[in-house]
C-alpha cells in the first residue's frame, strides 16, 4: 500500500505521508481510482526549489481517506491523469495554474481562476483561449462577466447552432480575492471570518469545514450540544437556499406564484436563524472550539413552531408546482446529465445525487453530530432540471425533520465554546462537510512552529461547474437560465 490511510478530521503527520516520484503517484492514483476511489483534493505546495504535490482520495464505501505525495522539480512535466481518470481534469488545471507543473496530454489545459499568485502571469483573462466553432448557422453568444440579475460575475461563451447550444465554455476568475493566501497570512486574526466569507451563501458550511480542520489539529472535541447547534444551522442553511432556489426556478419558468411564495418562505427560515445567531446567514455562530450562541427553551419552542409552518408552506407550494403541467413541461428532460457522465465528471452534492451519484459527506464521512444521527442518502436518476429541483424539495423536508429531531434531543453538556490551543506542528488535516451545494473540503498543513503554512479549499462548485456546461449541450439556449438555477453554483467558491 502506497497510501496513508486516514479519516475525515483525523490529521496525519507530514513525515508519515508516503512520498514518491510523480510518475508513481500518477500510477497509484489511476489504480486506486479504478478500484472506486475518487479525488477530493490535489494541489501543490512549494518546498525549497521544488513542489510537493499532495493527492487526497476518498473511499466513500469505507469512509476512508488516502493521502500520498510527490516531490517535483519546478517546471517539470508529467503525463496527465485526466485521460485515464476524467474527474481529475479541473484539479490538474488548477495544479498547472498554481505551480506551473504541466500535465502533458491534458485535453483542455486552461486557466481556472487567474489567481494573483499563479505561476504564469502571462496567462491573462483577456487572452483566454476559447474554443471556437465554424460552419453554417453557427454563432457565438457571449454573456458576462456582469449578468442581468443581481448575481456574481462570470463569463459564459455559448457556441450555438441556431437555437441549440453545441457547447458552453465557462470562464471564471473574476471573484478571486486571494482567500487561501489570506488564510495563511491572517490565520490567527481572521481565519474563521475568512471561512465565513469564502462563499457568503454557505457561511455555515465553510465555517464548519474550517472549524473541523482547526479543531482536529488542536485536538479539541467540542461538546455534543455545540455539535448539534452547528448541524441545526447547517440544515437551516440548506433548507433556506433550496427554498430560495425553488423560487428562482419558478421565476425562470414564469410561475410567479412559486417565486413569491418560496421567496417569503425563505425569509421565514433565515429570520428564524437570525433569532439564534443575530445574522440571517448565521454569521458569528461557528467558532473554533464550538459555537457562540445557545438555544433557550423559548427559542427551541419558536424554532419548532416556525419550522412547522415552513414545512407546511413548502409542502403546499411544492405539491402544486410539481404537479402543474406548464411547469413540468419546462423542467422535464431539460439539461439532463446521465449518471455515467456525472460520475466521470466527479459531480457532488444534490446535482450529483439528481444524476444517481450517491455521495453525501454526512453519510459517507460523517462529522460532528452526524456520526450519531446518520442521514439517509436520497438519489434520483433522470439528472434533468426536474430531478435537481425535486432533489432540493426532498432535501428541504429532510433537513427540517433532522432539525426537529435535534431540537428534541439537544444534549445538555457544556462548554458551548472551548479555547482552542495551538495546532499540532508538521501535520496535514482534511476536513469535509456537506454544504447545501455538496462536498466542501478544507486541507490545512502546519509547519514546525505550529503555524498554518498551506490552506487549500475545495468548494463543490469547483467540480460541478463543468456539470452545468455539460448539461446545456443540445438544449435550447433559452433554457440556460433554468439549467443554471438548478445547479446554482458559487463563483467565489471556485475563484477563492
Amino acid at each position, binding site marked *: 500500500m502506497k497510501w496513508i490511510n486516514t479519516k475525515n478530521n483525523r490529521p496525519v503527520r507530514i513525515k508519515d505521508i508516503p512520498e514518491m516520484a510523480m510518475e508513481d503517484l500518477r500510477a497509484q492514483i489511476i489504480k486506486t481510482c479504478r478500484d472506486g476511489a475518487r479525488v477530493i483534493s490535489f494541489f501543490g505546495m512549494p518546498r525549497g526549489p521544488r513542489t510537493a504535490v499532495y493527492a487526497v482520495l476518498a473511499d466513500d464505501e469505507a469512509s476512508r481517506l488516502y493521502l500520498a505525495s510527490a516531490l517535483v522539480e519546478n517546471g517539470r512535466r508529467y503525463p496527465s491523469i485526466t485521460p485515464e481518470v476524467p474527474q481529475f481534469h479541473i484539479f490538474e488545471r488548477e495544479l498547472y495554474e498554481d505551480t506551473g507543473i504541466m500535465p502533458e496530454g491534458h485535453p483542455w489545459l486552461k486557466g481556472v481562476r487567474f489567481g494573483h499568485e499563479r505561476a504564469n502571469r502571462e496567462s491573462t483573462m483577456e487572452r483566454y483561449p476559447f474554443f471556437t466553432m465554424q460552419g453554417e448557422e453557427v454563432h457565438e453568444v457571449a454573456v458576462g462577466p*456582469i449578468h442581468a440579475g443581481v448575481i456574481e460575475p462570470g463569463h459564459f461563451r455559448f457556441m450555438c447552432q441556431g437555437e441549440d447550444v453545441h457547447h458552453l465554455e465557462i470562464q471564471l476568475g473574476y*471573484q*478571486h480575492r486571494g482567500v487561501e493566501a489570506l488564510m495563511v497570512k491572517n490565520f490567527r486574526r481572521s481565519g474563521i*471570518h475568512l471561512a465565513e466569507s469564502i462563499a457568503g451563501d454557505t457561511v455555515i458550511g465553510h465555517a464548519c469545514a474550517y472549524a473541523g480542520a482547526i479543531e482536529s489539529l488542536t485536538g479539541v472535541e467540542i461538546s455534543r450540544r455545540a455539535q448539534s447547534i452547528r448541524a441545526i444551522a447547517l440544515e437551516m442553511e440548506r433548507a433556506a437556499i433550496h427554498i430560495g432556489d425553488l423560487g428562482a426556478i419558478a421565476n425562470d419558468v414564469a410561475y410567479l406564484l412559486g417565486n413569491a411564495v418560496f421567496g417569503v418562505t425563505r425569509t421565514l427560515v433565515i429570520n428564524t436563524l437570525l433569532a439564534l445567531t443575530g445574522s440571517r446567514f448565521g454569521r458569528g455562530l461557528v467558532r473554533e472550539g464550538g459555537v457562540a450562541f445557545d438555544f433557550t427553551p423559548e427559542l427551541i419552542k419558536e424554532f419548532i413552531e416556525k419550522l412547522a409552518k415552513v414545512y407546511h408552506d413548502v409542502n403546499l407550494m411544492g405539491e402544486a408546482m410539481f404537479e402543474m403541467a406548464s411547469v413540468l413541461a419546462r423542467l422535464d428532460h431539460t439539461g439532463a446529465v446521465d449518471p455515467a457522465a456525472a460520475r466521470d465528471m466527479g459531480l457532488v452534492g444534490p446535482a450529483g445525487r439528481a444524476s444517481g451519484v450517491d455521495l453525501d459527506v454526512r453519510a459517507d464521512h460523517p462529522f460532528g453530530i452526524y456520526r450519531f444521527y446518520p442521514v439517509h442518502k436520497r438519489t434520483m436518476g433522470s439528472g434533468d432540471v426536474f430531478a435537481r429541483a425535486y432533489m432540493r424539495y426532498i432535501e428541504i423536508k429532510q433537513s427540517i425533520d433532522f432539525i426537529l429531531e435535534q431540537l428534541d434531543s439537544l444534549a445538555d453538556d457544556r462548554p458551548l465554546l472551548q479555547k482552542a490551543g495551538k495546532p499540532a506542528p508538521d501535520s496535514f488535516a482534511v476536513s469535509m462537510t456537506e454544504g447545501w451545494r455538496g462536498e466542501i473540503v478544507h486541507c490545512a498543513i502546519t509547519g514546525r512552529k505550529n503555524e498554518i503554512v498551506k490552506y487549500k479549499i475545495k468548494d463543490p462548485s469547483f467540480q460541478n461547474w463543468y456539470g452545468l456546461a455539460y448539461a446545456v449541450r443540445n438544449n435550447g439556449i433559452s433554457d440556460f437560465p433554468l439549467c443554471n438555477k438548478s445547479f446554482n453554483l458559487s463563483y467565489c467558491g471556485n475563484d477563492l
Partner: protein
Amino acid sequence: MFETLKIRKNQGAQAIPDITKAEIRKPFRGLPYLDGSRCGRCEICREICPVGAISLKPLAIDLGKCIFCGDCQRLCPKGAVSFTNFFKMASTSRDYLVVDGRKTGEEYLENAVNARREITRMFGSSLKLRQVSAAGCNGCEWELNASGNPNFDMGRFGIDIVASPRHADGILITGPISENMAPALEDAYMSTPDPKVVILAGTCAISGGVFEGSPALNREFLKNHPVDLYIPGCPVHPLTVVNGLIRFLGR
C-alpha cells in the same frame, strides 16, 4: 385554480406595510453601543477585531470596516461593547460611519443621510440601479435580491435593479473589488449615462472587509469616482438597504 387560491389565502399579505417603522428583532447586530465608563482599557476588543474596526483613544468603531461578527461583544470582559438592533446605518458620508458609540439610533440617523437637492430632484421618484458584484461573496447579493421580494418590495418606491447600465441612474457595488473584476466595473460605470450615482453596499465594498490588504484586490475605482451613499452590513440587511435608499432620495 383552487389550489392556487388556497396558497394565496394561506400566505395572506406579506409586504411590510410601513418599511420606515419596521424593526429587526434582537439579537440582530446593528449600530454598536460603547460604554466608555465600563471600558477597562484592556484592549482585547482591538486585538481580536478581525478587521481593525476598533480604535481606543477615544473608543470608536468604524461601521465601514466592522463585519458585525459580535466577537468583541462576546469577549469584552467588562461588557463595554454591545450591538443594538438599530439598522438604519446608511450614510452619505464615509467619515460619519466612524461612531463613538454613544449615540442612540435616532441621534445617529439625524445627520446620517444628506439628501442633496440635485439627487432628490433628479431621482426622487425613480431610481434605477445596475448592480455590479465585484468579488462579493453572494451574501450582499442575496440580500439585495431580497430587497425586491414581496416582504421588502423596494419596487414600490420606484427603486429597481435593471439589466443594463444604459438603463441605469447609477451603480450599486458589492464586494471588495478584485483585480480581475476592476476593468468590468469601470466599463459598467462608463456605460451609465450622466448624471449618475455610486452606492456601496456592504463592508467589503466600503473598506475591503476581511479581504482588505489582499494583493488580489484593485480598489482604484473608488479613488477615481465619488461615492454617494454607503450602506454598512455584513451582509447588508434589506431593511438597511431600502431605508437608506429612500432617505437618500428624500422620501
